């Protein structure tokens, strides 16, 4: 029986071997490219480059722009669905923004649609980011471990606990 070859692409996920870090990577470049093209055609707009998916201290729940019409709501829900699949494919950098915007799936506003477009703009220009599944050990330098234990704080605590266990069954 013939082998199926090197794993490369499955359900939108690009699976690659990274020579530099010597590990497998899981990305969504192909999926993001196709979905961004589709949205640009659908909304007849061009996505702009941003360096983060959502502005710091931006609160979409405080948005009071006009409500979207039903045809736009369907597009918004489709966009959120696409973002959620991108998160599943390893793009956890947009997970918080996606979850925040998904709360308005039933009653989105114009501002929410613009924010979703901003996320797609971020994705389009940062499509190469991917999960590096590098199992080499992490460094714990500079981390303040709290290794005291409750019983160590009181030298006779263990005897005391034993006594309680004996007397109270």
């Amino acid at each position, binding site marked *: 029986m013939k*082998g*199926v*070859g*090197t794993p490369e692409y499955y359900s939108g996920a690009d699976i690659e*071997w*990274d020579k*530099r*870090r010597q*590990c497998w990577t899981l990305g969504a470049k192909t999926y993001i490219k196709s979905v961004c093209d589709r949205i640009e055609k659908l909304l007849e707009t061009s996505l702009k480059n*941003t*360096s*983060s*998916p*959502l*502005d*710091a*201290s*931006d*609160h979409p*729940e*405080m948005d009071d722009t006009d409500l979207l019409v039903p045809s736009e709501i369907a597009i918004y829900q489709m966009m959120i669905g696409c973002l959620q699949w991108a998160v599943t494919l390893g793009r*956890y*950098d947009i*997970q*918080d*923004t996606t*979850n925040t915007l998904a709360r308005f799936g039933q009653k989105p506003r114009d501002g929410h649609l613009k924010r979703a477009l901003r996320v797609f703009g971020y994705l389009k220009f940062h499509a*190469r*980011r*991917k*999960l*590096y*599944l*590098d*199992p*080499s*050990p*992490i460094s*714990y330098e*500079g*981390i*303040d*471990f*709290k*290794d*005291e*234990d*409750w019983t160590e*704080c009181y030298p006779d605590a263990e005897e005391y606990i034993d006594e309680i266990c004996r007397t109270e069954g």
Partner: protein
Amino acid sequence: MPKSISTKFAEPKVDIVPLTVFKDTSHATCLNTRRSVIGILILLGNAPIFYYSKCQNTVEGSTYDSELVAMRIAIENLLGHRYKLRMMGMDVEKYSILLGDNNSVIVNTQLPSSSIKKKNNSVAFHKAREAVAAGYVRTGHIHGTENPSDDLTKAVSPTEFCRLTEPTLYNNAV
């Protein structure tokens, strides 16, 4: 399957699997409901295997309370992953590292200096305390700006965003 691929799978890079959990909470982020958002990132070595970002189900009165709830959820997910990895035949490290940026929660899992009156928080506290006493979790404190789960809880500035996602999502990281 080509020979080169099969050898890559056959030789494990680590003998004992080290798990690290980063957890963070953004207290009362949602201005409509005043619920907090939890962010949890579980790393196997340097590889992210689990990421979680979600509104909490309860409205908490203080940062400490919402951090406790986040700690409980982090420990529950960690237990699940430890069990799954053991079922796959991997040798999981005796204890996993749990790192957070709220010092009082981290300290209270090791030192008896808290009184918790609300039932949900009391349960969450004892869940965390049990994990530390049983020895499968070792807690540690890191600075908030070094916590990679920070961008799972709130929108951060572009420079901070790049720095937090760098170790796992960029090619130029070490």
